[in-house]
Every structure is written in structure tokens, then in C-alpha cells.
């Protein structure tokens, strides 16, 4: 066994190249607002500019084929890019683009050659940011119950409906959407999956007022939006995977979303913040609270972070080596969700009300601790609730079933 990510000499040479390029080209004075909803327009512009610069070099979506605008690089090289970006405080992509990540993976599996050539390069080159449009008021855990419709009309489809919990602040140029194309059809056989430019007439959106909206994996999203479709006319060319085949297309990105997206294997920056805060207080002989089991709480937090790291490492290794990946994604995702709540409670016990305020003088770590208190509650739900992760785990493990359920197609 080897639990270390080691790199060849060639790969280390590549790292040097990435590092020096980033030193030269990565924007300075980055914003890292505790609440990503506070990211300024200027901060967002910098993120997108860096995205385009990376895209030009094939480093934005490094492992995708270069013929579609990807980098044609290895997983190790992608990891190097990610690690080097992390030194500058960026993720890959440097802006919230879960729709691009999941959408591109789905198009790679289900799109025609023509569709790949049409949709992928702009994502991979950072020219568009893409939102994912899944959840609706009546389709949360029961995603297959989407009520937004697409009706065929000549060479076009006409879309009507509403999607919630979408995207981020500062808009997007592209999106993909799961809709109903056969209202009378059988469950799971009545859905279709489309790419939708966000500037089409009839598309509009408005921010949702939520407890907290950011801090999903990757670059944080900021506010979530409600997106409305009113007689939006869309070319039939934008249908990916064929009419009424949308549930299988969704199987691809849902598989990824349920715990297989995190590849960075980075450490836990919150843990480091907390240890620093705690030891500083100890050194001043001033723990904020009388907390008899402080060292146990901290040890438990550390253990949780180690388990999370190892489960993601295992998943990464399983995928990289072509081994079967079944219940593993939701398991890691479940751990992340659950340990976030445990961490929130521990922080509240360790720091009392200090953990809850964003006040510039009194709050901790520029509000990052407060944001974790809210964010950990919100984090239980996106990408499938805790209950849905368990449903998938049970199916994949074959609990109470004659046969374990198969995973969604990733290739």
C-alpha cells in the first residue's frame, strides 16, 4: 500500500511550470469572504478571467480531451494544477461551476459528436459558467417528479416551469435542465435533459432568501436562485441523450454529485483555523468556555476530518484504478454532511456565542466560524439529503434486495 500521492520527475517538472505561470498570472488580492454571497462583481470578474486564462492553456478542465477544448492531461497533472491553485486560494475551476463539471461529464457520456463539439469547448475554455437546474418545489428528494415541461414544436422545444436552489451569485451564461417531456408517461421514462443558454427570451431568475447558500464543494456558490421559464424556445439540437432518456443522463451526474466530485484531497482548512484559535486561547490561559472535554472534542473533529480525507482518497483511488464504485460516493458524502454538524456543535461548545457572530471585533476568523454554523445545517440537503444518500447506499449494498443496484454510467 501507499497512502501518498507521489509524482514522477516529469510531473514535478510540470508542477514547476504551473507554479511559475500562476505566480505570474493569478490575480493578487483575492477576496475570500466568509459568506460567498458577498463576493464582489470585481472578485467574480477576476475568477472568470483566471478561468479563461487557464482554459486557454487547457488547465481549466485538464483531463478532458483536447479536441473538445480540454487539456488532455493525466489525473496526476490535474491534481498538480489543483494543488498549485490551492496555494493561491483558488479551486478548479476558480469560480462556481458545478454545472460545467457535471454537465460536461454527462455530455461526454450521452452527447453526439456534434453536441460535444458544440457545447464542451466553451465550458472547458472558461467562456461560459454553467448552472445545474434540477430541484423544483415538487421535486426535491423525488427528483423524477419534475413538473417543468418541454413540449416539442417543430425543430424546437418550448419550456415552461420553475427551478429552485440554482447556481450562484453573478449569473451564468449556460445551464442544463431536467424536464418532463411526456406528462402522461411512465415514471423515469418521461424526462429529458437539455442544454439551455441563459440568455434565451423567457428565462429569468431571482435570488432566494436562505439561511445560507454557499460552501458547496468547489468554489462556493453564493446566493441560490429561482429560475423561471416562460415559453422558452430551445433548439431540439440541445436535447442530450434523446427524448425521454433524461433519467439515465441524470444518472451520470447524480453518480458524480453523490460524493465522487471531490478530487482535491486537500486538508481541512477549518480544522487548522480551530486549532489555532483554541491553542491561542489556551496559551493566554483563557479558554473562552469552561469545556471539560475540549481535548476530546478537538480529537473527534480531527478524527472526522481524517476519515473524510481517507474516504475521498479511497474513492479517488477506486475510480483511478477502474475498480467498482458503488456505495462509496454517498458514504463519503454522508460523512461530510454528518461531520459538518458534529463540528458545528463542537465549535459552539468550544467557543460559545463567539462561534455565532460575524462581528468584526468579536467574531472568529472573519466570520468563517459563524458561516460554518449556518452552512453545516444547509449542507445536509444539496446533492441529495442525508436520507437520499442512505437510500442509495442501501440499494448499492443490496440491503433488502435480491441484487445490488447498478451505478449510473460514468463512461
Amino acid at each position, binding site marked *: 500500500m501507499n497512502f501518498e500521492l507521489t509524482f514522477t520527475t516529469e510531473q514535478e517538472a510540470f508542477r514547476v511550470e504551473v507554479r511559475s505561470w500562476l505566480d505570474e498570472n493569478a490575480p493578487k488580492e483575492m477576496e475570500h469572504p466568509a459568506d460567498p454571497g458577498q463576493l464582489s462583481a470585481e472578485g467574480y470578474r477576476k475568477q472568470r478571467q483566471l478561468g479563461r486564462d487557464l482554459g486557454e492553456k487547457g488547465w481549466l478542465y485538464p483531463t478532458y480531451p483536447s479536441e473538445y477544448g480540454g487539456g488532455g492531461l493525466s489525473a496526476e497533472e490535474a491534481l498538480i494544477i489543483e494543488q498549485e491553485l490551492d496555494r493561491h486560494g483558488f479551486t478548479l475551476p476558480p469560480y462556481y461551476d458545478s454545472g460545467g463539471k457535471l454537465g460536461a461529464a454527462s455530455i461526454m457520456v450521452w452527447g453526439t459528436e456534434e453536441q460535444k463539439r458544440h457545447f464542451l469547448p466553451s465550458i472547458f475554455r472558461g467562456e461560459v459558467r454553467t448552472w445545474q437546474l434540477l430541484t423544483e418545489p415538487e421535486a426535491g*428528494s423525488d427528483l423524477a417528479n419534475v413538473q417543468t415541461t418541454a413540449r416539442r414544436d417543430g425543430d424546437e422545444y418550448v419550456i415552461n416551469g420553475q427551478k429552485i436552489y440554482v447556481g450562484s451569485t453573478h449569473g451564468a451564461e449556460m445551464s442544463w435542465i431536467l424536464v418532463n417531456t411526456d406528462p402522461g408517461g411512465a415514471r423515469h421514462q418521461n424526462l429529458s435533459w437539455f442544454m439551455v443558454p441563459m440568455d434565451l427570451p423567457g428565462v429569468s431568475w431571482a435570488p432566494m432568501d436562505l*439561511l445560507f447558500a454557499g460552501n458547496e464543494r468547489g468554489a462556493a456558490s453564493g446566493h441560490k436562485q429561482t429560475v423561471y421559464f416562460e415559453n422558452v424556445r430551445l433548439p431540439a439540437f440541445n436535447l442530450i441523450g434523446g427524448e425521454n432518456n433524461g433519467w439515465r443522463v441524470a444518472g451520470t451526474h447524480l453518480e458524480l454529485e453523490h460524493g465522487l466530485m471531490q478530487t482535491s484531497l486537500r486538508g481541512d482548512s477549518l480544522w487548522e483555523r480551530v486549532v489555532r484559535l483554541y491553542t491561542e486561547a489556551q496559551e493566554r490561559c483563557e479558554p473562552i468556555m469552561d469545556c471539560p472535554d475540549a481535548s476530546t472534542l478537538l480529537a473527534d473533529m480531527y478524527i472526522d476530518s481524517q476519515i473524510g480525507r481517507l474516504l475521498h482518497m479511497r474513492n479517488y483511488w477506486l475510480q483511478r484504478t477502474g475498480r467498482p464504485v458503488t456505495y462509496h460516493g454517498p458514504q463519503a458524502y454522508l460523512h461530510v454532511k454528518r461531520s459538518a454538524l458534529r463540528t458545528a456543535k463542537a465549535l459552539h461548545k468550544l467557543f460559545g*456565542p463567539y462561534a455565532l*457572530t460575524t462581528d468584526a471585533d468579536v467574531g472568529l476568523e472573519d466570520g468563517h466560524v459563524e458561516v460554518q454554523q449556518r452552512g453545516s445545517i444547509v449542507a445536509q440537503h444539496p446533492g441529495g439529503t442525508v436520507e437520499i444518500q442512505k437510500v442509495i447506499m442501501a440499494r448499492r449494498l443490496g440491503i433488502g434486495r435480491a441484487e445490488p443496484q447498478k451505478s449510473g454510467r460514468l463512461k
Partner: protein
Amino acid sequence: MLDLALTQSQEMLRAAAREMVEREYSKEVLLQLESDDGELERSLWDKTASAGWPGILIPAKYGGEGGSLTDAAVILEELGRGPAPGIFFSTAVLGVLSLLEASSEEQQASILPRIATGEAGIALAATEARYVWKEELTRTKAVRRGDGFALNGVKLFVQDAGNANILICTATLEGGEAGLFLVDVPLSGVSIRPLPGFLSDSFEVRLDGVEVPESALMPGGWDALDSAVLKALPVLSAYQVGACERVFEMTLEYANSRIQFGLPIGRFQRVQDHVIQIVNLKDAARWTTYEALWKLDENKPDAAAAVHVCAAVAREAYYQACNAAHEVHAGLGIMREYGLTLHTRMSRTLYHYLGDPAHHKARLAAELGL
């Protein structure tokens, strides 16, 4: 004989309080309060006062109801259903009990009637940088100046200070012990600043050379305050019980009305278990709370242990009930307009207020001789 029912007059009080809370502290009003500058809150306070509730614990001779702690808890339980803001507890429960335990006859005669009429709002400014309930951690100083004292220091996480016009401030006297001072606000040298974030009505109070007369010092010290807090704790727990009840109702209703996979989500065992957890938490909080109230009202010698039990249980119950409710509500629950987050925020605020569960377990262990 064993009797776990409220008295008839308590039941009437409860009904009136519920009606008032439903009418005045609707979700819409409470959401508005989150961005209120104080005016709305004052008008709500006036309505509460007109029902006579601020005087619930005030002796009749000062214009109050002379009620028991259990009577006060009946009102607080209903306020918790809102969850209505904390100024009622700060004033009519913690404030009144502090005055009854620690202040002089004259101080009582001057202030209690004003509380009973709803004119005065009280906030207890005791906690400082270290958020631990201990006399020796009081660093605010009271120095003799002329006929009175000058107060200097910073009080942190003072609940409801922004809505009070009298602060009870702890400050170290020259002998090293903590004294309790009545500070009218606004007053020169007192600056009160809200602490924003995931907590409700919490304030920083800075005292910069604040001059108060001799008569501002209460005769009772930290021990008197401690015993006021001991009595106030289960009344606060009753607020958490009421809040849990409301969170339970919201969650059960949602579990039964939300259809997914063609069924009310309450048909799924995982969802049921969240609701059951809330029921178990709220019932544990309810009965430990009302037993502690009864023991205090009856002057039972082991009341303190019961108080720390209910304080630990009710804090944890409200916190976890909100978490469980969020599991059931998923996306809907985190929308501000739905109203669950009003409870979530309040559950966090009250988790540590007047001592977090770890504090109360430590006190309990001490009471049990462990």
C-alpha cells in the same frame, strides 16, 4: 396527590398567551423583527404589557401578579412558540428575579412598578470576554467617584440590551467582589452595539467611565444574582419547551403534507424517526422543566439539581429539535420566509445563554456530590 396538570387559572393564562402570541408574534412579524430598528419591538412590548404579563412575578404591592415560577413558565412556554423575542424573559423573569433577590426595598419600589406597567425593560449585563458564569471573571471595575461610582469595562453577549432601558451590570468593587449596578440607559459613557450573526438580540455593552450614584448599587451581590439565575433557568427552559412544541407541530404537519414518491414523506421510517426524536426531546424537556419549577415553587431542598437537569436537557432539546426539523424540511426549512430558521437561530442563542449544557452538567455533578 400526584397531579401533572396545570391549574385552571394557569390553563386560562396559557390560552390567553397562546392567542396573543399567535396574533402578535406571527411569523411575518418575527421575520420583520430581524431587521427591526426597535420600534416594532417596542410596540409589541406595549401589547404584552397591557395584558399585565410583565408583572407576573412581581409582588402585588408593586402592581404585579405575585405569580409562581410555574405561572411565569406558562407564559414563557407560549412565547417560545413564536419564538417571541427575549426581552420579556430578560425583563419580567431574569430582571424581576434579580431585583427581588438582590435589590433594596427602595430599589424595588422604584423599579418593579415600572416593569409591571411595561414602562421599564431590563437586561442583565454580566458576561464578559470569557463566557463563563463565575464571579472572579468579572473584569469590569467600579471605582468610587464622589457620591457614586465610575464603571469601566466591556460586557459581551448581553441579551436584549438594545431593547432595555435599565441594565443590571456586574462590576468588581474595591474589595474584589462583584457588585450589581442599576444603570439607566441611554446614559453618557454607555454604548450598546448589536452583535450580528446566527444569534438573536445579543449585544456588546461598553462602559467607559459611566457615572452612577451610590443608590445604583444593589445590596445583594453575586450569590443573590446566582440564586435569581437558578430560579430563572427553568422558566427559560419552559420557553424552549414551547419552542420545541411548535417545531414539532411544524414538522409533523410538513411530514404529513409533503408528497414525494407518491406518499407523504412521513410514511418513510427515516423521516418518522426525526419526528419521533423531536417528540422525545420535547417531552424530556417538558417534564424535567416542570418538575424543577415545582421544586422551586415548593422550596424543595434538591431543587438546584433539578434545575441543572432541565437546563441541560432543554438547551440540548431545542438545538437538536431544530436540527431534526431541518432534516425533515430539507430545502424548504432553510428558506427564511418559511420561519423554521427563526427557531434555529433562537435555539443556538439559548444553547449557551446562562450556561451551556456542559456548564449545567458540571453544576449538576457538584450538586450530586460527584
